[in-house]
């Protein structure tokens, strides 16, 4: 098969904007400084015109669907809701969860004696949350997992516990998810017709 020859139309001569370097520089400087001054006046007036979050003093408002690091829900009595059933451990595609179950004298007789998540392996997929039958592990809005020591990337049970009150947004969000997937007791009609 013969190759097809394409003829490209090029401008016969370069434009003035491309050949006269100083003009191009001045044009660029005008764009930059107009933004600078607009932002500066906006900042002085206390009404910033641009979207810059002053992290870490300011934190962004995240959507309930945002998946940060997985945490364990802490009940009002200070104990974890987790019963160490091991489903998140099984669901985890990167095997970052390690649980050793144990027995207690409480009414719920089982609890995790060890619950470790290796945050350096966690990929924030949220399958653990989806697998959990107890709403005990949820994806929080925490994202700061940086550490100065590799051992620090393994989060233990005490580090992972977070009071249920702080996780209310996410818990409400995942409960809405049950209805969407049809897992609720009463089937939910989807769409029209």
């Amino acid at each position, binding site marked *: 098969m013969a190759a097809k020859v394409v003829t490209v139309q090029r401008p016969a001569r370069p434009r003035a904007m491309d050949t006269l370097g100083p003009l191009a520089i001045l044009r660029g400087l005008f764009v930059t400084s107009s933004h600078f001054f607009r932002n500066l006046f906006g900042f002085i007036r206390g009404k910033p015109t641009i979207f810059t979050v002053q992290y870490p003093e300011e934190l962004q408002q995240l959507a309930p669907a945002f998946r940060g690091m997985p945490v364990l829900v802490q009940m009002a009595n200070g104990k974890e809701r987790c019963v160490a*059933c*091991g*489903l998140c*451990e099984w669901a985890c595609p990167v095997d970052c969860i390690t649980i050793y*179950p*144990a*027995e207690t004298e409480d009414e*719920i007789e089982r609890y995790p004696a060890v619950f470790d998540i290796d945050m350096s392996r966690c990929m924030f997929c949220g399958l653990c949350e989806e697998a959990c039958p107890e709403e005990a592990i949820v994806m929080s809005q925490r994202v700061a997992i940086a550490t100065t020591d590799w051992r620090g990337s393994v989060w233990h049970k005490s580090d992972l516990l977070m009071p249920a009150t702080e996780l209310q947004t996410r818990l409400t969000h995942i409960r809405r998810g049950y209805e969407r997937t049809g897992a609720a007791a*009463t089937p939910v009609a989807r769409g029209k017709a």
Partner: protein
Amino acid sequence: MAKITVDGTTIEVPDNSMLLPVLLDRGLQVPHYCYHPKLSIDGSCRMCLVKVEGLPKLTISCNTPVREGMVVDTQGPEVTKARQGVLELLLVNHPLDCPICDQAGECYLQDYAFEYGKRAARTQEPRRKLLKRVDVGPRVVLDQERCILCRRCVRFCKEITETRELGVFNLGDQSVVDIFPGEPLDNDYSINTADICPVGALLSKDFHHKMRVWFLDETESVCPGCSNGCNVKVGAARGSVYRLLPRRNDEVNDTWMCDQGRLGYRFVNEHRVRTPRVRRGTTPPENASWDEALQQTTTQLSELSRRDGAGALAAVVSPHLTNEELFSLGQLLAGGLRIQQRDVAVISGKSDDFLIKADKAANARGASDLGLAATAGAADLAAIRAAIEAGTIRGLFVTGTDLWEVWGEAAARILGRLEFLVVVASNEHPLLDLAHVVLPGLTFAEKNGTFTNHAGRVQRIHRALDPGTQPSDGEIFLQIGRRLGMEITPGLFDPRQIFGAITRRVPRYAALGWDDLGRQGQPTADA
């Protein structure tokens, strides 16, 4: 033989058998809870309903005898609907305990609920509240809420152990399985009730809340607890053994095993010897390299043999070694070390007329079959003991630590008289402090090989845990042999190859083949 038609296929089945076992043998999936091949028929769960042409209603297949020309439907819509109904009734009061229930993952109720169940309950009433975590015995815990009253455990205690500890109490929806007041479920086979429980009502305390079953790798093996050689599955996860479960073998243990054997796996996980030790000057021996330990063994033993003659050496053989290791050890003793005086040290214990045998080692029979036990007229364990006390035996090559229990309190005094003591052991033991060289061995869970049970049945064991670079006992014997200048084929210790050598050398094993042993083992010629 009778001809019956099942789901459109005509099959030949033995006369006088019930329908359900026949169907299960053909690989058909007929759900059932109360039927167990080794127990009497109860017919209480109503789950194995099938449609038989000519009968007015659906019938339970476990209690329907086969009949010539019978036409059976196990799959049809009528049958499925009936099973769904039965399952719904069984689940009416079943608690949603799956996340905290040890049975989850191997639970018949979960399996059938997945197949036949509805996603949500239709009942609005609160579920029945019964006792949870009832301490029915020292090794078993009962959860009455989870029980579906299939009465397998009750029949087991009545028919197999004949101890009758468990019973069904009260009537109607108040019925519960329980023990009689002050009569705990404390027989030697009590944990079998947890095995046969199709749900999580009876559970082994040892395994309670230890590990999810889906994380366990199950390896077929043989129980090392006594010479009965019960077939087991070794459940291992994260480098540890978590439980032993009996495996069906009608020639050996049916589907049962004793509690002592089942709980006797802990030595695999605990107090292991991992590095060789050599005594330098005073007691106890210190960690050393493999090279140093093996070198010490060979030089000291040959030195003693050259100085005082072969009569100054003796060997005590462990009945926990596999046949292949015993065979290699036999060659090492006869060839490289030239040790004539040798015997097997077997701990003797409790026995009964069912599964528990007095010899508390898996391969005592194998050791005598392979000629490592003292024959009549030769120096036996008592003679070796006397010779050590008299000072004629100066060096002792010991495999295993059972000798300590066999000789009892005098063991330390007797062994202290030795000039040179080599011990090949897998676990920490006071005997090791007296040794001059300690060589770490492996346990049954880390080896491939065969055991011969008390009746002469040769059965395979498979490696459940990876020992890493640690050599097996057989490898140690080969390496000692090589250092002593024996002619040994190059390469690692290969159980298959050595089993071949056993079948050629030992007449009793001549008809056996490594690949023919299968999952159930094969009897030796005279067994």
